[in-house]
């Protein structure tokens, strides 16, 4: 059974593409045949994060318009077996997508025995975002610990409940997961950021993971490598934990507390 998971947030710049890349890579690493689709038509980014920008020939819009085959369009990842990237078109806009066209693409992927389809949503609540979430079985709502991000996430949760295919067909609702990104426990302690408890209380959906703010996220983006592959970094480990929870394993949350300062740091910090 193929599972379709949308990574969405409403707000821009909170880490949807970073998350999509790491979740897809993590699932593939555990042996699941996985494809990650960039729905941000016109603002293509996923290929950069995945480090395959030089290998894009055809894109999602070509596939939707039946100008290329699935085999021609999918980019096979060079590092991880079972991982494929379906890039967005950079020269078109969101109007190039239609529900029927996207339905055809999802159907083809399901027939190609993919275990997971990860849909990287564009920001906003307009057509592109609605297309990305329409076919979702599950949703990873990416939220930064600040009020505007939380409110936008609340909005997108409402849209998931009313505009997804599952809601329109009166099927079991989309399963929602909360992923808090750019979490900085020290700034939470200072009251500059919302705490995990505040966010969970405001959004009232189960917590999938907390990704700490970490310089390795930017380093990996620049290097075209999903941060989950940086096993030394806290962010990479946190994404790995999130994969385990996504697959049903109960794991305690990490990286919630500010690191205790050593004597020297306390004296000179």
């Amino acid at each position: 059974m193929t599972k379709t998971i949308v990574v969405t947030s409403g707000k821009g710049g909170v880490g949807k593409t970073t998350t999509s890349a790491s979740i897809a890579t993590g699932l593939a690493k555990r042996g699941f045949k996985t494809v990650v689709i960039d729905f941000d038509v016109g603002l293509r980014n996923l290929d950069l994060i995945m480090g395959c920008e030089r290998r894009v020939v055809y894109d999602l819009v070509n596939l939707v318009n039946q100008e290329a085959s699935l085999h021609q369009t999918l980019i096979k990842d060079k590092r991880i077996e079972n991982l494929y990237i379906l890039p967005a078109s950079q020269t078109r806009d969101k109007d190039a997508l239609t529900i029927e066209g996207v339905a055809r693409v999802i159907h083809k992927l399901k027939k190609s025995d993919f275990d997971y389809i990860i849909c990287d949503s564009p920001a906003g609540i307009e057509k592109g975002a609605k297309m990305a979430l329409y076919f979702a079985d599950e949703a990873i709502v990416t939220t930064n610990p600040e009020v505007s991000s939380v409110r936008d996430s609340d909005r997108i949760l409402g849209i998931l409940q009313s505009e997804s295919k599952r809601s329109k067909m009166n099927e079991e609702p989309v399963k929602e997961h909360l992923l808090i990104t750019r979490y900085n426990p020290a700034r939470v302690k200072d009251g500059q950021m919302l705490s995990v408890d505040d966010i969970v209380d405001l959004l009232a959906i189960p917590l999938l993971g907390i990704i700490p703010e970490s310089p390795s996220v930017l380093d990996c983006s620049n290097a075209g490598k999903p941060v989950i592959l940086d096993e030394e970094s806290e962010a990479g480990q946190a994404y790995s934990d999130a994969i385990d929870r996504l697959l049903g394993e109960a794991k305690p949350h990490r990286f919630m507390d500010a690191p205790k300062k050593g004597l020297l740091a306390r004296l000179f910090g």
Partner: protein
Amino acid sequence: MSSTIGVELKGGMYTFMSLKLHTNDMSVIDAELADKVLQAPGFFKDTPVVIDLSVLEEQEADIDGKALLECIRRHKLVPIVASIGDRSSGLASSVAIPLIESGARRSALSREEPSQSADSARKEAPSNTQNPIPDVDLSVSREVEYVVKAPLLIDKPVRSGQQVYARDTDLIVMGQVGPGAEIIADNNIHIYGPLRGRALCGVSGNTSTRIFCQSLEAELVSVAGNYRMLETIPEELRGKPAQIWLDKDRLTIEPL
């Protein structure tokens, strides 16, 4: 004989918004209507209203019926009927829509138009002409059916940007109401969770409706059009279980 029923004539209770006129100055009516409608244009659009002329009747004031109807329709409201109070100065005849008469006057009218059973009573006692209808007959002739509508029950959180309206009934939310969400009811609102968005009860004018919530963090609460923003809600009531109701036209918030 056919077993299906084509039409049924039944008594029913319906809630309508009433437009009570306190002045006959058309420019004031126009300006205030514009102001009210502007607060919730989508909500008021095509809403049927009862024009309440009772105050003007008391004042024995005059009004240009045609201009009044035009003005109301211009604000996208639909005047359906005019209502007058106990006194009739003939004012209502200038407003060319059907008329209902409220309060004591209505029962007075009933006395003037005896029912069938009253007729038979009169036949039996033709000498008793001063008071032709005994009280007991009135209760027989006036049959009112009360229709109870099931409340609208929402069993998941109401999210930012979502709007829920319980028409002619209570609204029950089993969960939170997010910031930027709006819940509206013609009757009472019950929230089993925090209220962080806007809640408006009694929107068609029912002043005896209330809002109940488990944690008051609302952006706005309103009972029959009397509203308050969070800023004017006392600090000590915030984040606590509360009820909101109208105490003689004054919006009152009390802890539960």
